[in-house]
């Protein structure tokens, strides 16, 4: 049955993405991996093609799409065989903060540039000493007249180098409660006191510039606070459903891409005169993997449906984020095994998937945190 109803407009959007990615992204994936970076110009190109920020309304230069656009986007993105051009992070995770919590002035100032690709965004929550435990956040924000002074370090920031605008979470050190002191601030590239560390060498996602950010008496105008003072934790929590749903979708869609590649590989690879796909044990594994992917796809679509419908699907989203990203890793592990020797070469596209996918069980909240959240909201 068809759970998600795509309009003609969605399909046109998909086609546009497909054509663009095939021409401007996929062919460069290997080079970006080698360079450990995606040139800024690529972001501009995506923007110029009208393919950034599907959720931004027309009044700010966007197309005013819905979450189905995001799904279509992620499906097409999964085919680009790279992850460094982190479009989803910008489109569906960071920009929505500005959209939801920015003042009209802020929105008018930044959103059109986010859409055009002139302003690439990042979000900085995690800190070296405290990891994902927001209650221990050490970065501070102090008001000083019309300005706010930020001090502290952030780490594991995706788009760490390429970003033109960073949403920084910082706490008012005068407030005791670990959560209610947190606010979100917009810090532009080039602001004095804002510096970026070396890019990290990583297992995967190599074309992506994960870095540390340093704020040393970094002054920003007061207007650059997002939402209400002390509302940072609530805002982060409110946006988590969508962020985690995106991570969950990434897991399922990624697994779909793997089983597709794998079946093709097994059908065309002849060993001792017989395609791998005719080996009973491999056939069984392919069926098992395809089964899990279908289960994930169906559940995912109902969650997307409910999310678009405005329902609270925190429990289910936490579950699918955990299950789907575990699935992705399990499948790419099995796929490499089944493929055999060829899968030890970087030439084999699934090897990149193997390296890249390992972070998915950690980012957007580790899968352990997902289970805590689910248990809590299930009331057990």
């Amino acid at each position, binding site marked *: 049955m068809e759970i998600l109803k795509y309009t003609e407009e969605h399909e046109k959007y998909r086609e546009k993405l497909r054509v663009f990615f095939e021409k401007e992204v996929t062919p460069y994936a290997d080079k970006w991996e080698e360079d450990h970076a995606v040139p800024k110009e690529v972001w501009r190109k995506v923007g110029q093609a009208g393919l950034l920020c599907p959720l931004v309304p027309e009044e700010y230069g966007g197309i005013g799409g819905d979450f189905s656009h995001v799904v279509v986007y992620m499906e097409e993105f999964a085919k680009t065989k790279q992850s460094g051009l982190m479009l989803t992070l910008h489109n569906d995770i960071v920009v929505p903060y500005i959209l939801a919590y920015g003042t009209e002035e802020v929105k008018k100032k930044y959103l059109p540039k986010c859409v055009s690709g002139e302003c690439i965004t990042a979000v900085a929550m*995690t800190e070296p000493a*405290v*990891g*994902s*435990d927001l*209650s221990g956040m050490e970065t501070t924000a102090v008001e000083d007249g019309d300005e706010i002074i930020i001090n502290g370090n952030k*780490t*594991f920031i995706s788009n760490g180098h390429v970003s033109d605008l960073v949403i920084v979470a910082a706490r008012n050190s005068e407030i005791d409660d670990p959560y209610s002191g947190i606010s979100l601030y917009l810090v532009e590239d080039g602001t004095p006191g804002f510096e970026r560390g070396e890019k*990290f*060498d*990583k*297992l*995967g*996602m190599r074309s992506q510039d994960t870095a540390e950010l340093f704020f040393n008496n970094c002054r920003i105008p007061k207007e650059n606070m997002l939402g209400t003072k002390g509302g940072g934790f609530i805002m982060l929590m409110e946006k988590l459903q969508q962020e985690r749903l995106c991570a969950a979708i990434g897991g399922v869609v990624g697994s779909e891409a793997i089983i597709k590649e794998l079946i093709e590989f097994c059908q065309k690879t*002849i*060993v*001792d005169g017989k395609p791998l796909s005719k*080996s009973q*044990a*491999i056939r069984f594994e392919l069926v098992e993997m395809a089964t899990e992917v279908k289960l994930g796809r169906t559940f995912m679509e109902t969650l997307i449906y409910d999310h678009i419908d405005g329902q609270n699907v925190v429990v289910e989203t936490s579950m699918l984020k955990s299950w789907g990203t575990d699935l992705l*890793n399990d499948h790419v*592990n099995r796929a*490499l*095994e*089944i*493929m*055999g*020797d060829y*899968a*030890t*070469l*970087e*030439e084999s596209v699934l*090897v990149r998937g*193997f*390296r890249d996918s*390992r*972070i998915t*069980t*950690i*980012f957007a909240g*580790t*899968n*352990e945190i997902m289970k805590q959240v689910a248990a809590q909201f299930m009331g057990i």
Partner: protein
Amino acid sequence: MDFGLTKSEKEMQKAAKAFAKGEFDKDMSLELDKKKEFPTKVWEKAGELGFIGMHFSEECSGQDLGLMESCIVIEEFCRKDSTLGSTLAFSSYGSESILKYGSDELKKKFLPEVAEGRMLSSCAFKENGKGYNFKSLSTTAVRDGDEWIINGEKTYVLNGGSAGFYTVLCQTDSDADITKGLSMFLVEADREGLVADDVGEKLGLRMIKTATIKLNNVRVPASNLIGNEGSGYKQIQEFFDINRIIISAQAVGMAQGAFDRALDYVKQREQFGKKIAQFQITGHKIANLSTTITQIRLLTYNAAWNYDQGKNDSKLTAMAKLASTKAAVDVAAEAIQLFGGYGFMTEYEVERYYRDSKVIEIFEGNRGVQRDAIGKDVIGKIKK
């Protein structure tokens, strides 16, 4: 039974620990992995100190030790550094055929070079489109007077391009039964007609070169035939027996090394007001991982012990390869998870253990190959 290490085993373990501690430098390793360079100095030193070809006879510059001691050493090396350890484990790759079947001339000429860390060896057996049955190879050796002429192509050859010689499995009689139609030859790397084409970047074990070896009318003297004509199948099976045990020992070391790092980390890292180690779920993960490691170590030692006793048991060997390499990958994956974001970063090393262990899991017969072998052996003959 006796689960205590013998004196010789303990000594070698201690020596290996000391060597790894003294010679394996983390920054050097990260650098070599990044640059895809062989750790020449470490290898030379290991050769000098007798850590290569420990089971070679003394006249071949070995120490006449058992495979058990080799496994213990390799485990310690790979525990300390998955890649450096593997380069050493594989530095005598393929030499065993010469040790066991080679003429005195071949032994004297090549094995001391290998054991002393002056020459890498390699075995070239795999062909494109062929599995691990070796029912018919496209690489052939044809006798021509006092020489053999070899033609063909071997893929995924470890140390390919850096080895001083290759033991090459060839079809010498295409009409004969598999147990008689194959022969093993020593082919020096500098023979005319031999070309090593590097396979390019690999997922793991990046300090080790891997190549496709193309043999185009390569002529070797008849004395380069290892053992008897037609004994190739037997030799390759024995090669697998010994190498799968060695790989299993690497896997045990890698699993232990990834585990060590994760354990240290969870004991010192705080989250949500307590050390990560203090969460029940962490304790359970640690319990599962250490149970797994204990099991694969026993299995590997058992396989090595059987080999040393002359009671080699191919199914036990395949079990060790199957279980240990899978466990190493799983342990490394869980170690990364316990590290959280840091686990993904090269600097914390566990990501390299993950990549390296995945390569040895696939290498020399993936799970399917091992399971086929074990199943066949356990099931045995079937009455009609």
